[in-house]
C-alpha cells in the first residue's frame, strides 16, 4: 500500500518516472482504483454504455491524473501538487489521508473530462432530452424549455397579452413567497452567495436553510405557471415561466428596497424599476 513517503517522493522528483520502484508501482494503482470507482458512476450514461471497456489502463489513468491540473511543463505549472500537500493536517484526517482525499477530488474531475472526451454522447443528444437537476410536474425539463423560443413580446397583441399574463402571475407568485424565500432570491439576484453574512443576517437563519428556501422559491415560481395555465403546451409554459421569473425578481428587488433588513442586499443592484 502506498505511503505518504511515496506521495512526497512524487512531489519532490516532479514526475513518477523519476521515482523509485515502490512509488511507480503503488501510486498508479491507487489512482486507477479511484478512477474505476468514479467512472462506474457515470459510464452508463455515455456512449460506452457500461463501465466495461471505459476504464483506461493504470498507466493511462495516472498520466491523465498527473497532467489534468498541470498548466505547463515547468515547475510553475505543477503547483497543484503544492495544493494537495497544503491541505494536510486537516481535521479528522491523517496527513496521508488528506493527500489522498485531495487526490480523489482531483480524480473526479479527471474522470469527468476523460468520459466527456472519449465517450461523450454530446453530438447525439436531442434538444428535447431532459436537463439534469430540473423537472416540472414530475417531467424533466428539456433544453428547449430552459431557453424557450424567440418571443418578441412587443410584436403582436397576443404577445402583449402573454406578457401581461406573466406580469399578473408574477404578482401571485411573489405573494406566495415567504420572507426567507424573497431574501434568498434577492441575494441571488444581487450576486451574493447564500453564505454571505448579509444574506444570512437578513434571513435570520443558516446558509443551509437559506439554500433550501432558494430552491423552494424557484419551484414555487415554476409551479405557479403550471397551476394557472395547466392546459397550455409545455413550450408556452416555459416561456411564461421565464417571463414571470424576471418579473418576480423585479418585484423582489422592489420589496428589498423597502425592507430595512434587506437594503444592504440591494446595494449595487441596478434594476430600472
Amino acid at each position, binding site marked *: 500500500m502506498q505511503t505518504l513517503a511515496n506521495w512526497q517522493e512524487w512531489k519532490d522528483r516532479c514526475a513518477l518516472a523519476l521515482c523509485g520502484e515502490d512509488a511507480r508501482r503503488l501510486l498508479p494503482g491507487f489512482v486507477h482504483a479511484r478512477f474505476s470507482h468514479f467512472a462506474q458512476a457515470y459510464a452508463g450514461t455515455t456512449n460506452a454504455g457500461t463501465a466495461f471497456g471505459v476504464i483506461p489502463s493504470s498507466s493511462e489513468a495516472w498520466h491523465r491524473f498527473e497532467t489534468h491540473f498541470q*498548466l505547463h511543463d515547468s515547475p510553475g505549472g505543477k503547483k497543484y501538487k503544492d495544493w494537495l500537500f497544503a491541505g494536510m493536517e486537516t481535521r479528522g484526517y491523517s496527513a496521508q489521508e488528506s493527500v*489522498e482525499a485531495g487526490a480523489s477530488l482531483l480524480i473526479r474531475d479527471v474522470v469527468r473530462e476523460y468520459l466527456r472526451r472519449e465517450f461523450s454522447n*454530446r453530438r447525439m443528444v436531442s434538444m428535447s432530452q431532459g436537463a439534469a437537476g430540473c423537472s416540472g410536474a414530475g417531467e424533466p425539463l428539456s433544453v428547449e424549455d430552459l431557453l424557450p423560443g424567440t418571443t418578441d413580446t412587443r410584436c403582436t397583441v397576443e404577445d402583449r397579452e402573454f406578457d401581461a399574463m406573466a406580469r399578473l402571475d408574477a404578482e401571485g407568485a411573489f405573494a406566495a413567497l415567504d420572507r426567507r424565500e424573497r431574501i434568498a432570491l434577492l441575494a441571488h439576484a444581487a450576486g451574493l452567495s447564500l453564505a454571505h453574512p448579509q444574506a444570512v443576517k437578513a434571513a435570520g437563519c443558516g446558509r443551509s436553510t437559506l439554500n433550501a428556501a432558494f430552491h423552494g422559491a424557484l419551484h414555487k415560481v415554476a409551479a405557479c405557471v403550471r397551476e394557472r395555465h395547466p392546459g397550455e403546451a409545455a413550450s408556452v409554459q416555459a416561456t411564461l415561466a421565464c417571463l414571470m421569473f424576471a418579473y418576480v425578481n423585479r418585484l423582489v428587488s422592489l420589496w428589498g428596497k423597502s425592507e430595512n433588513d434587506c437594503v444592504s442586499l440591494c446595494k449595487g443592484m441596478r434594476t430600472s424599476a
Partner: protein
Amino acid sequence: MTAVSGTYGCRLAQRRKLELWLAEWRAYRAIAAVPFLERPVTAGCLGVNVRDVGVDAAPGAGQVPDVGQVRLLRPGCMDMERTRPVYVAVLRQTGGTSWMVVPFGRFADPAIPGELRTGLRALPLRVLCVWNAHVMTQEALARAWLCRKIAAGLVTRGLTVWRHISEGAVLDRDLIPRVGPPLEHPLDPRHAYVQEERELLDVHIGFERPEVVPRSEAFYAIPEPEFRRAAERRGEYGRDDGAE
C-alpha cells in the same frame, strides 16, 4: 427576450451551448454523488496548516501581484466534497493594495453570459468566470501560488465581459460566441451552479466584490416595463388615450 436573443446570438446556438454545459453538469453531479473516500466524510475540511513537507507557506511573497497573473489559491477551509484547486486571473488593480481577481471554471463550456471561453489549452483555464469576480488584498494574493501569465488580450476580453454584466455595456460581436447562454428559467440547474461557485470563492477569498456587482439583468432577461408602457400607450385605434 428579444434583446437577450440579440445580445447572445441566435437561440439555436444558445441551446447548443447549454446542452454542452448540461452534459458536463450531469456528469459532475453523477460523479459527485459517489463517496470519494473509503470512509464517510464527517468533519472533512481542507485546512491551511502546513507541515514541513516542502510546501512554501508564502509562495508568492516577493512576487508582486500584477495584471495578467494566474495564481492558484491555497486550499480554503471548506466541505471537502465541494472544493477543488481554484485558479484565478488578476484582471486589474482596484486600489492601492487590492486587486480584482476572476476564477477559472470547472467545466469546458461557459454556463452563463458572464463566463468567457478563453481558448487556452490548459484544462483548468478553459473558462473565465468573470461574473464571480472578487477583490483580493495584495497580502492574500501573495499567499497564492504564481503559476503563469495570460495574454493582455484575454485580460481585455475579460474586462469587456465584466463591463457588460456589471454596467450593461454592449458585448463585442466577436465575444458573443465565447460567452454562455442567458439564464432565464427558474428551474434551470445553473442557478444551483451559480450559488455553489459563489460560495466556493467566498470561502477561499472572502466576501468582498468589485464595486459594481453583476446586476440581475446579467442573469435574467428582465423586460423593461417603462419602454413597454411607452410603446403600448395606444388605446383604441384612432384615439390617443395618453392625451390630456
